[in-house]
């Protein structure tokens, strides 16, 4: 893995070779100067091609708060490597001052007080302003959407993704790839994709029956921009039918398929591509590994694992750009492409401070139109957070939102133990803030939100935890699925992330009695987001709403039930 020092040296070497490079400005520009829209958007247009990357918006049309993770453990060759660096280590790595706007945007420390100072982030009307500003400087900039766009909110659920399709179409993307979109069901996905005014790409989206590429999702598309022939190759989330309910889209098969990726790169190069861009939903570590195996990709625009990195990571001759999630960031990458190759680049991760960047009036109006039929349902206040209580999700283990959801499952479903999926989406709530129905849906909305109640033996519980842990901590990134650890309520355990599957989880205890979990004993377990067909139960958002309404003000006890070693 490249350390920052090596990375800078590499980039210095690259700068010497290429003549120009875009490193080192980010922290100075964004963190140490007064926050103005002009400063946030300031960019010395470079080269002849501009790429604009948005990804993992999760249907967040409006500005939100979003706390970055405090725990993001890297294993194997990625131990201690970005994006597995958090908090003060992260700020030190990138030269970001404590308490600065960049510290607020990119790290978790002091989150609630910085959030009070700097305000909300995101909002697609602000994103529109940024895109328009880049297009003013470079009219033919490519806008590429990494997917997880048509999922994650009340209005997205009610309209089966139509609200997001309508608003994104107004931003005029050039291409998109996919993940959660498929949980709308293949019939709905096909219907939307057939009408999309831009390319729906995925070299790894296959017909499941014949194990052949599909017609609806071509592997790549060519663009002619700034006199450069650009190929954009799509890479959808590889583990869709495993991490999400495959029965909802049985006609499709995925996988990493890096050998086909190489074939596609070779094919587009043979057809004259001077710049090869991979629009990826692999997740960061998988992209890094793929960049080391597949040759000829210039830029990987990385999505899925929701990492926001102020500088690209270099693997061989490939730069990997990670652009965060929930509408919080837009990446701009300017490239100098001459004589059929990338000679240099300039990059900026633009944080969308919603109080600083003016909303685009047209897109604001369009967003309001999508939300208008649901305004009263969205804005209903269900409860509020206590004066010391932040609600957030991101992190390898339980976030406070998950603790609250698990509490709701245990009390509303009368269970011993609760399980909540380790997804990485879901905005945060500050102390003393009203919790609306929209807020609850923002962290629970999905097309398979049934809250089940079932019996599991202690042995099976162990198998479940080991299985999910291996999806996260397998030292080979190709075996990682890019989520976080399943969240648990009522259950404590110790995890050694360095051990192989089957040996990581020990000391499982039932929190309410302090007893050790008995492998042969049966426990009542409540959970949600099962990938199994035919799961029954009330919707998770109704369970959580009922619980919050009863509590009124939310103040959670600190959760110390998971002991992590080997990090």
């Amino acid at each position, binding site marked *: 893995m490249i350390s920052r020092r090596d990375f800078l040296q590499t980039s210095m070497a690259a700068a010497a070779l290429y003549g120009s490079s875009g490193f080192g400005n980010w922290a100075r520009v964004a963190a140490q100067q007064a926050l103005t829209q002009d400063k946030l958007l300031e960019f010395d247009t470079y080269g002849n091609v501009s790429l604009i990357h948005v990804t993992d918006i999760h249907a967040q049309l409006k500005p939100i708060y979003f706390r970055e993770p405090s725990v993001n453990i890297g294993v194997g060759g990625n131990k201690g490597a970005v994006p597995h660096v958090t908090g003060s280590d992260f700020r030190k790595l990138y030269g970001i001052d404590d308490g600065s706007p960049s510290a607020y945007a990119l790290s978790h420390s002091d989150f609630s007080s910085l959030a009070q100072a700097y305000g909300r982030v995101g909002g697609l009307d602000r994103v529109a302003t940024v895109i328009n500003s880049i297009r003013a400087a470079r009219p033919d900039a490519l806008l590429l959407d990494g997917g997880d766009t048509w999922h994650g909110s009340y209005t997205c659920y009610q309209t089966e993704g139509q609200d997001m399709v309508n608003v994104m179409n107004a931003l005029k993307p050039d291409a998109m790839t996919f993940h959660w979109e498929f949980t709308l069901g293949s019939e709905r996905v096909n219907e939307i994709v057939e009408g999309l005014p831009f390319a729906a790409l995925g070299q790894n989206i296959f017909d499941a029956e014949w194990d052949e590429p599909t017609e609806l999702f071509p592997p790549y598309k060519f663009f002619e921009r700034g006199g450069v022939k650009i190929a954009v190759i799509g890479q959808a989330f590889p583990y869709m039918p*495993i991490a999400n309910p495959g029965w909802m889209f049985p006609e499709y098969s995925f996988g990493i398929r890096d050998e086909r990726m190489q074939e596609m790169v070779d094919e587009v190069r043979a057809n004259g591509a001077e710049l090869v861009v991979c629009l990826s939903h692999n997740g960061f570590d998988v992209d890094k590994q793929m960049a080391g195996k597949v040759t000829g990709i210039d830029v990987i625009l990385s999505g899925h694992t929701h990492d926001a990195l102020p500088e690209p990571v270099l693997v061989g001759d490939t730069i990997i750009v990670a652009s965060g999630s929930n509408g919080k960031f837009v990446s701009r990458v300017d490239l100098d492409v001459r004589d059929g190759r990338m000679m240099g680049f300039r990059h900026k991760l633009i944080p969308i401070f919603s109080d600083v960047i003016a909303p685009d009036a047209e897109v604001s109006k369009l967003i309001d139109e999508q939300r208008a039929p649901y305004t009263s349902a969205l804005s209903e206040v269900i409860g509020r957070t206590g004066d010391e209580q932040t609600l957030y999700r991101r992190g390898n283990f339980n976030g406070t939102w998950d603790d609250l959801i698990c509490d709701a499952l245990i009390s509303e479903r009368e269970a011993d133990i609760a399980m909540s999926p*380790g997804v990485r989406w879901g905005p945060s709530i500050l102390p003393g803030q009203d919790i609306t129905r929209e807020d609850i849906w923002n962290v629970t909305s999905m097309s398979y939100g049934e809250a089940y109640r079932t019996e599991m033996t202690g042995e099976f519980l162990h*198998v479940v935890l080991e*299985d999910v842990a291996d999806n996260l901590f397998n030292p080979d990134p190709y075996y990682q699925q890019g989520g976080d650890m399943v969240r648990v309520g009522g259950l404590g355990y110790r995890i050694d992330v360095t051990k192989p599957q089957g040996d990581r989880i020990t000391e499982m205890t039932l929190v309410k009695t302090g007893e050790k979990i008995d492998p042969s004993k049966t426990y009542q377990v409540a959970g949600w987001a099962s*990938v199994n067909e035919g799961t029954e139960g009330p919707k998770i958002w109704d369970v959580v709403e009922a619980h919050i309404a009863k509590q009124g003000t939310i103040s959670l006890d600190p959760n110390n039930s998971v002991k992590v070693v080997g990090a």
Partner: protein
Amino acid sequence: MELTRRNAILLGASAVLASGLPALASTVTDDAIATFTGGAAVGEGDLKLTAPEIAENGNTVPIEVASSTAVEIMVLATGNPTPSVATFKFGSMAATRNASTRIRLAGTQDVVAIAKLEDGSFVQASSAVKVTIGGCGG
């Protein structure tokens, strides 16, 4: 259940059987390889095995073997109770020497392919395929 001596023996026997299975399977794999190669050394080279890193469905996992000079390719699922999957034979006139099929995997395991090449030597390729109960992606 009343614990009689007969039951105790049965319980004991099934426990031995259960714990003995993985060893048994690998012996079966080794035996199958030895029978195929006639005990000859197995190297690496002109053989490619393509399998998914994580199976989308353990009951039907697509795999592909390819070699430009193989006359015979044997595929083994080393973690299955019966590891033998298939043996593909290619005549000297075969334009392409690849084959694809779908196999059932009992759990996470190595899938192994052994090819006998035209020159009589043997090469091997293997791929770890994970079979998971599924979960929740970001």
